[in-house]
């Protein structure tokens, strides 16, 4: 096998991370996916339908935008890959569109999903409505209270939203509940995982569906600059699906620096953080071996981030391998730094980013880039869903209506 960072080996391992650590009750479902996902994704009829929907329904290709004022401020060249302009407002739908077509070909009649902030839940409810398939979304009881608008969107789209009341009542518990539901419905149900996590083949399958992001970046950058390759590609990482998609076609290009930005919360050492590579140890959660925030006794720790989409104690095995091998540079941004970056982008470029995305942009204040560098940021989602946080946590910044201080 050719040495690549893009794909795991046949057992789902990226280096020492990955695999399928699942109870026997899930074996048949997972084995069916392992045996069929590549074959189904390779079928001409699948690709045709996928490409049509990505173009006519999702709105791809999304623009690659040279952010002029932001570039001038930081003395470098900054391109934004506008995943925020996808239907439903984030990159999540690239994956849910792919998986609903796969589920259809596997003959599944019922879809389940987990969601934290609700973006993946909305993207799943959307494609289920599109295909007329029953949809059940598991969401932590705490997140249901915090993310009321997205709960309403899912319900309006016809999905049933089930509160996860176990454990910490957030994303990891919603994932546990979705997995339990899958165990209880082995025949008719497909589980659409929202990130590059879970047992093999999910990390690889989701990365392949998201890889359209970097495939488009290469083409668009070539048209704009004459070169397909940026010097740096940057994305925020929770589980890591937008990062996997943005990095994918650059992973085996050694001249391109891969930069992942995790959520530091109140600070990496504050005890209120979600910076998994900084704080985690090798461990097993949700069916794969990766880096995991945990106690010395191996109990999973509840992370903290102002951004619900980064509030996850693990990280996809591909990213754990990028970190451990040194191929990727892993940095972090705090809640406050992300808020600053969100307001900066709003005032300099007229784009309100999702809080997750803002973590990636915050890195501009922390690392100096050269004048000739070409940076591509994955602008993974738009900030509409975060307006209540921007209005409360960002209240002081709101009242400073001043474009020039940025």
């Amino acid at each position, binding site marked *: 096998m050719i040495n690549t960072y893009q794909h795991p080996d046949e057992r789902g391992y990226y280096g020492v991370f990955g695999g*399928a*650590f699942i*109870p*026997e009750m899930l074996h048949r479902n997972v084995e069916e996916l392992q045996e069929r996902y590549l074959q189904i994704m390779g079928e001409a009829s699948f690709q045709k339908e996928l490409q049509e929907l990505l173009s006519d329904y999702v709105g791809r290709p999304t623009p690659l935008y040279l952010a002029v004022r932001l570039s001038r401020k930081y003395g470098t060249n900054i391109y934004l890959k506008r995943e925020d302009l996808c239907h439903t407002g984030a990159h999540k739908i690239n994956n849910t569109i792919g998986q609903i077509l796969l589920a259809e070909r596997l003959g599944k009649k019922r879809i389940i999903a987990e969601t934290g902030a609700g973006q993946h839940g909305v993207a799943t409810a959307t494609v289920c409505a599109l295909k007329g398939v029953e949809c059940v979304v598991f969401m932590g009881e705490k997140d249901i209270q915090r993310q009321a608008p997205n709960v309403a969107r899912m319900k309006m789209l016809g999905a049933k939203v089930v509160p996860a009341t*176990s*454990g910490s009542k957030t994303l990891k518990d919603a994932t546990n509940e979705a997995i339990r539901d899958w165990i209880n419905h082995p025949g008719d149900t497909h589980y659409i995982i929202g990130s590059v996590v879970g047992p093999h083949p999910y990390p690889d399958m989701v990365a392949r569906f998201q890889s359209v992001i970097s495939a488009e970046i290469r083409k668009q950058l070539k048209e704009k600059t004459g070169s397909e390759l940026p010097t740096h590609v940057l994305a925020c990482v929770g589980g890591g699906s937008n990062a996997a998609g943005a990095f994918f076609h650059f992973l085996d290009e050694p001249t391109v620096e891969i930069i992942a930005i995790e959520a530091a919360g109140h600070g990496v050492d504050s005890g209120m953080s979600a910076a998994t590579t900084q704080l985690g140890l090798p461990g097993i959660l949700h069916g794969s071996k990766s880096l995991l925030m*945990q106690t010395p*006794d*191996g*109990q999973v720790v509840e992370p903290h981030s102002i951004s619900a989409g980064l509030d996850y104690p693990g990280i996809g095995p591909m990213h754990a391998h990028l970190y451990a091998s040194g191929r990727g540079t892993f940095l972090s941004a705090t809640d406050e730094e992300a808020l600053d970056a969100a307001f900066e982008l709003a005032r300099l470029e007229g784009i309100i980013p999702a809080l997750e995305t803002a973590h990636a942009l915050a890195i501009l204040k922390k690392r100096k880039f050269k004048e000739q560098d070409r940076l591509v940021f994955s602008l993974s989602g738009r900030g509409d869903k975060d307006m209540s946080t921007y209005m409360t946590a960002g209240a002081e910044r709101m009242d400073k209506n001043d474009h020039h201080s940025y």
Partner: protein
Amino acid sequence: MGRLSDLFNRKQRNVLNVYCTAGFPDLGSTIPVMQAIQESGADIIELGMPYSDPLADGPVIQASSSVALQNGMTLEVLFDQLRVMRANIHVPVILMGYMNPVMQFGFERFCRKASEVGVDGVILPDLPEFEFENEYGPIIKKHGLDAIFLVTPETSEDRVRKLDALSSGFLYAVSSSSITGSDKNMDEVGSYLKRLHGYGLKNPILVGFGIRDKTTFDQACTNAHGAIIGTAFIQAISGPANDLSAIPAFIKNIIGT
């Protein structure tokens, strides 16, 4: 070999395995609960090692794990409690739990400690057979522990045979594809168990998931060597007073003594 094979040499029917969560209802309950289970007539004790994210378990067992963790249960504490176990506990004891805490403890260290305190076997439901064969199984065997795999009605015949070959002690037949604590159609379970029986496996079969009282225990035992009760037992000792006096009546009712 050990206590499990001795047990099944002596008794091929109506073997009762009772699951309890270590450190539940109180941190110090582990040994008293095990002793009450043994004295009430159960044949095997399956001791759950609490984990924050027990994927294969339902809400009752997860809640007992959360309580145990809040009580301060860890693997270090557990092995300390179990040091004196064999002074009074003579039935086979199996540790059941998830891979992550075991990995953090150190897999080999875990097996060594388990063996030292007199544990007979382990059930690690999220340890896949490939990793078992290539990495972890030899360590389990080296320390003289039985490794017990799960099979379900969805498990193919080839795979049942393979998991039977990898297992020792007994094979854990999950009564249907579900998490613990769900209701089951025992007729369907019966035909599945007959199918397993027909394979002529090397290991005895114990049925788990959905066994909650004398009726379901007897039904399960008509086509297997015995059965495992977990959720219903945890419910029985989950009363407000953390009262262990419920244990003898609960178990004696099931085995009909």
